[in-house]
């Protein structure tokens, strides 16, 4: 994967504030705008999240749980990961936390 050509976006869904999220566009992080250290860090997190085993099926009894969609675009390839609060993998959570705390998110 070419780090410079990578764009990672994330969107939040559901929860008590679902009305806010439903009309918000995804937050996009363009690796080309990051310094090399941060770009490399992002790539490692993305690779780990994609390689992590699929999470357990979500319970149909949860209510107001939030879910998140992370989309990775790289050289014409698109990978879409969608996981929720109660079922997300540790790798997905680490990537999500990185994206959330990225300046401008």
């Amino acid at each position, binding site marked *: 994967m070419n780090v410079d050509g990578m764009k990672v976006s994330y969107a939040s869904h559901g929860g*008590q504030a679902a*009305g806010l999220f439903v*009309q918000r566009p995804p937050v996009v992080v363009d690796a080309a705008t990051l310094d090399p250290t941060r770009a490399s860090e992002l790539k490692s997190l993305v690779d780990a999240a994609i390689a992590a085993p699929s999470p357990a099926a979500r319970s149909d*009894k949860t*209510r*107001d749980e939030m879910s998140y969609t992370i989309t990775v675009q790289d050289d014409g390839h698109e990978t879409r990961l969608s996981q929720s609060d*109660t079922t997300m993998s540790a790798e997905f959570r680490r990537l999500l936390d990185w994206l959330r705390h990225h300046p401008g998110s």
Partner: protein
Amino acid sequence: MNSRCRCINCITPPHILKKLLENPDGKVRDAALRTLLTTASLRGERRIRSLMGFAAAPSGARRTIFDCNSTTTLPSATLARSEDGRPSSDQTANDAFDGLGKTRQFYKEVFDRDSLDGNGMRLNGYVHYGSAYNNAFWNGSEMIFGDGDGVLFTDFTKSLDVIAHELTHGVTEFSAGLEYHNQSGALNESISDVFGSLVKQWAGQQTAEQADWLIGAEVFTPGTSGDALRSMKAPGKAYNNPTLGRDPQPDNMSKYVNLPDTDDGDNGGVHINSGIPNRAFYLTAIGIGGFAWEAPGHIWYASLKASSAKTDFQEFADTTYLQAGQMYGQQSAEQQAVLAAWKEVGIRISGVRALAGTATRIKKQAALTMGNGRDQDQEIMRRIDELSSQLATLTQEVASLGGGRPH
């Protein structure tokens, strides 16, 4: 009604019964309405009985609050406060504890319901979930609260109606089991808003006129411009600013928002279209007046128990009308308030629409006939008398099916 008839009635799908309410034959309409009333009551009882098998063992609805210490792993959370323990040094834990207690007390004192399952289910809450987590949710058996990011949102335990909202998801799961998609999901959300708001009003002894009818007003930081997460009084007007956007809730069926049944479509807009039944409840409460947890709350609670997993707005509206008639009498002020409220949000009660339409057509036809100089008065009068008789019979039978008049 004999036992054989009742048995057949129980397996008649509600949508067919609703269609029969529009049948030109008054006897058919009459039978359909009686069947709807009977099955609605049985459905609620049956649902509760079926859940008794796996409901938690009675525990006196004891409360326990755990501290997630900013992690998302519930098993590693530490005890923050228990039913017999002393108050915590952490105000968030105390707020969660108190919110669970007020909600438990509300359901017990107002609806004589012992905890969420009606069987003393234990109440567990988890505070300080995750890092800057902007939410509170029900995981199917327990409550989880985030601290907020401190920018848009603050501690979610600060809002009693949010706590009661989440716990009411448990009540709904143990009664109607409304599916969390599309209209049944929006109804599920609305039920949580209705009873969430009622717990707050009950705790503050506020009348319908005094209440703010806002959900989550306390979770916005002072720097966040907006009234609340949702407004039951004015759906679509809870917030409108560049940071949050504009409240997308509709206040009328004509503005129903069709969203995909996906995560990014909010499961068909369950948090969006809940504005419609939310406003119907608000209008009912204002129409009846006084404390909203009394007649309006009892009508909605009985209707929830009489609903099923796929109940949609129309079916729920019809049920509230029928329940209001059963509990407070046909044509009572309470029933009329329910009828007017649903009409105001663009939902007409099924049976009433058919009957009213028939009467209107007859009146128009009579006027037209008189204008044409035709001598068909006797026939018109006979049909009006017949309709009036059917209505009177229907009213008496419905009243006889009802129980005592709850407070």
